[in-house]
């Protein structure tokens, strides 16, 4: 199938000096149903890359095609109809209700002077059902747990009715139960045909949910391919600077997992 998102030779710098970029020569593509995992250590530029792809950050160089169209020539609202971006965000200061936040996802479909109507509320309801938070609809967002807040942001992105979903470390700061809950939702969205780009600090999760993985290291995509080929002892050591063993676990689990060897402990 034709890719939904094509990123070619992408480069970005905060300083304005392209000799000192956050990353460069980044090339990948994501099609319908793909779940593309972006790994890399803290500060490697994963978030920045995702913000460029979502057109939240501007000033990047290279090419980003969204369903074949050049994203730099699209209006923000046109991009937002195709890409749902789930940021790493704190809860806002105002106690907006969950349903008020989810319905904000309808913004790209509405003109400046209009506010959401019945149809938009129905779409927001469906988004909350998909994310499994319909029971939280009338809760102020200031009372949510970290996992509930993350699911609220996912529901908001779903309400945009996008074909691509970009998630910035959605499982960080969450307990194990909530991590699994998020991964389950992400996997289901991929299976329903969305293209998914997701940054993560958990190489293990690539074996659970990803169809493809890549590692961002020293401003380059160091490695890219199926999770089995990317998440390996050698790559993880290069990335995180510690010895890691990737082992197959049987016992009814039947997938690989990563273990720091801690030989010098």
């Amino acid at each position, binding site marked *: 199938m034709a890719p939904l998102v094509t990123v070619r030779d992408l480069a970005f710098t905060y300083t304005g000096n392209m000799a000192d970029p956050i990353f460069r020569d980044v090339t990948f593509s994501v099609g319908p149903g793909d779940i593309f995992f972006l790994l890399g250590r803290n500060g490697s530029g994963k978030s920045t890359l995702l*913000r460029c792809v*979502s*057109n*939240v950050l501007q000033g990047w160089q290279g090419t980003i095609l969204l369903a074949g169209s050049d994203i730099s020539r699209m*209006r*923000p*609202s*046109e*991009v*937002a*109809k195709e*890409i749902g*971006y789930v*940021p790493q*965000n704190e809860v*806002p*200061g*105002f*106690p*907006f*209700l969950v*349903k*008020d*936040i989810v319905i*904000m*996802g309808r*913004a*790209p479909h*509405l003109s*400046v*002077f*209009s*506010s*959401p109507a019945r149809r938009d*509320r129905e779409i927001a*309801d469906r988004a909350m059902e998909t994310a499994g938070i*319909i029971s939280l*609809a*009338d809760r*102020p967002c*200031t009372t949510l747990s970290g996992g509930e807040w993350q699911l609220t942001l996912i529901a*908001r992105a779903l309400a*945009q009715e996008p074909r691509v979903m970009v998630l910035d470390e959605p499982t960080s700061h969450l307990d194990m139960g909530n991590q699994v809950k998020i991964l389950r939702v992400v996997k289901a969205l991929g299976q329903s045909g969305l293209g998914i780009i997701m940054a993560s600090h958990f190489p293990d999760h690539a074996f659970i949910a990803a169809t493809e993985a890549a590692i961002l290291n020293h401003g380059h995509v160091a490695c890219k391919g199926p999770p089995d080929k990317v998440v390996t002892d050698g790559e993880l050591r290069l990335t995180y600077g510690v010895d890691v063993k990737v082992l197959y676990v049987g016992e009814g689990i039947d997938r690989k997992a990563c273990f720091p060897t801690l030989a010098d402990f």
Partner: protein
Amino acid sequence: MHGHEKGTGIGLEQGRLLFLLAILLIVVATVSLMLGQMKVPPGQIVRIFAAPFFPIKRTWSPTLESVLFEVRLPRLLAGMLVGAGLSVSGAAFQGLFRNPLVSDHILGVSAGAGLGAALAILFFGNIGAIQGLSFAFGLLAVLMTYGLSRVYRTTPVLMLVLAGIIVAAFFSAGTSLLKYIADPVNNMPSIVFWLLGSLNNASNKDMAVAGPMIAVGVTVLLLIRWRINLLAMGEEDARALGVDTGRIRTTIIICATLISAAAVSISGIVGWIGLVIPHIGRILVGPDNKRLLPVVTLIGASYLVAVDTVARVAMETEIPIGILTALVGAPIFAYLLRKNRSGW
């Protein structure tokens, strides 16, 4: 399923709440027209206002009619417009700056207007010049804040706040200097009195100029009120939701500045409205600006008319309204903070 019309707060249906607030405004406005040196019973007010349209026998003196039409009515309209305008622009700024403690003065509009008024009092002395210069300097101050904030391209909202502090400090120092050199018998008291705020000078002529400006500003903010929610989620979030954040931010600043500068030019500096009224509104309907802004418009109008009526009739001489809004507003605010501990 959950009900969609009910927000946080008291859970009254939005349409019914707006209806009740409209009734409240009509009652407050009528009482305001009744009170003053000449007391007028409510029935007579209705008859006097109906007289131009219906065949009603004029049993009242022309003086009374001119007091109502030339003095109390323009002052009532000024109170409603200034109260509604400052409340709506306060609420809009709180969304824009993502902070419920921001007031409509944050970009320096009142500091600028204060210097403009002080200059006009010193050098021209007539009310037209005071209104014109305070309006112009209010705009100038915000323009300087906006220009200064664009020197640095990162975090535009934070830069606006910092630039606003810088510009306000500069203009306030100018006002202090003028107060210091002003003639202490005539000019200095007028400057001080102007800075304390009053609707005393509101005339039909002023309302013809400032009224439409405030009305347009409020209308635009009401039209884009749902988008203000998106900005309250933060710059990047709003962009990811397809909002042209620069354009909507500029629109809010233009509208709020037009409102505040026009309001200041007719009423002087009236503080606390833009802070207290949005808080009362949030307790009633929650933080969603779609519900909040219409409610805030009506409460703000009633509140300032009520306070101005007290300012007119409570004592022999008129109390400056800025003193009253602070005197009443600060305790209300303290009470709300206590009551609303769970969040904004």
